[in-house]
């Protein structure tokens, strides 16, 4: 199922739920009232959207750094004939939350999520030693905006 097969109710739900669920006794009822549907229908649709993987997740979104952890964006420049092997080596680290191949000389980009800054530095060194390639560590120095809102 893709976006083109979402009906208007699904679209309204996806758009509304990206903005946040209230904290009250019956939060789904509150959102259902806003959308003009029943609570039962809303819950069923959210489950369906999750089952169809149109939503990755539904729940509290935490700021890992404010919880005391460390996050960093890292990049590597990997020769094409080594790419799959290195990708396997990097992905084997639990601390690698996601990893993308991008079209650039720096062609591997991943996010490290660790419990502390020390652990992050340690993992960077371990990845360099396991793969034999340099890791360009690019922790955020300042956040201007975070808040994906994709209208569907």
């Amino acid at each position, binding site marked *: *199922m*893709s*976006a*083109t097969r*979402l009906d208007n109710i699904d679209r309204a739900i996806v758009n509304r*739920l*990206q903005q*946040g*669920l209230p*904290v009250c*006794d019956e939060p789904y009822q509150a959102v259902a009232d806003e959308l003009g549907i029943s*609570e039962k229908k809303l*819950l069923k649709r959210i489950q369906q959207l999750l089952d169809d*993987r*149109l939503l*990755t*997740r*539904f*729940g*509290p*979104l*935490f*700021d890992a750094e*404010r*919880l005391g952890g460390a996050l960093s*964006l890292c*990049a590597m*420049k990997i020769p094409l004939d080594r790419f799959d092997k290195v*990708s396997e080596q*990097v*992905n084997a680290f*639990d601390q*690698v*939350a*996601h*990893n*993308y*191949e*991008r*079209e650039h000389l*720096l062609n591997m*980009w*991943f996010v490290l*999520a660790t*419990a502390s800054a020390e652990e992050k530095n340690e993992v960077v060194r371990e990845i360099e030693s396991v793969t034999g390639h340099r890791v*360009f560590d*690019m*922790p*955020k*120095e*300042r*956040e*201007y*905006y*975070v*808040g*994906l*809102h*994709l209208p*569907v």
Partner: protein
Amino acid sequence: MSVCISRSEVDAEKETDSAELDRRIVFATQAGLPLVSRPYDELADRLGVSSERLQQRLRAMLADGRMRRIAAVPNHYRLGYVANGMSVWDVDDRCVDALGERVGALDFVSHCYRRPRHPPDWPYNLFAMVHAHDRDEARDKVERIAALLGDACRAHEVLFSKRILKKTGMRLRPD
């Protein structure tokens, strides 16, 4: 025997309890919020606290920013946003913060950060993720950022994602 506990000791104990409960809330909700009529009651039951206390802690975490919101995370690929470009910019250090705020405020930018340069391989210090339905639309959006940055920007590139190599989401582990 007199038991004398100062007010600050009581407060300190409460704070420790709250911090521990907050940690447990983080782990209990990593898989998501229960899809039932009274989700906070169910979560509170699981954690052995009252729903009122749980809701109070959720509000506290939202207020101080440890929790951004309780919301849906869309799978942008499956929702038709298949052109996801990481636009990167070499912006004058003297005005990057003021300009970063303006770029971040654009409605098609989902994340906007300042990060360290690594010259000569990597001269860029401003990152803005752009989501679009196709590459032409993404490039149009990048042009709008370029216009906003003007002369303060010396160079820029857009790195499109070619393949997802791993996506597990963030997993915070107990100590």
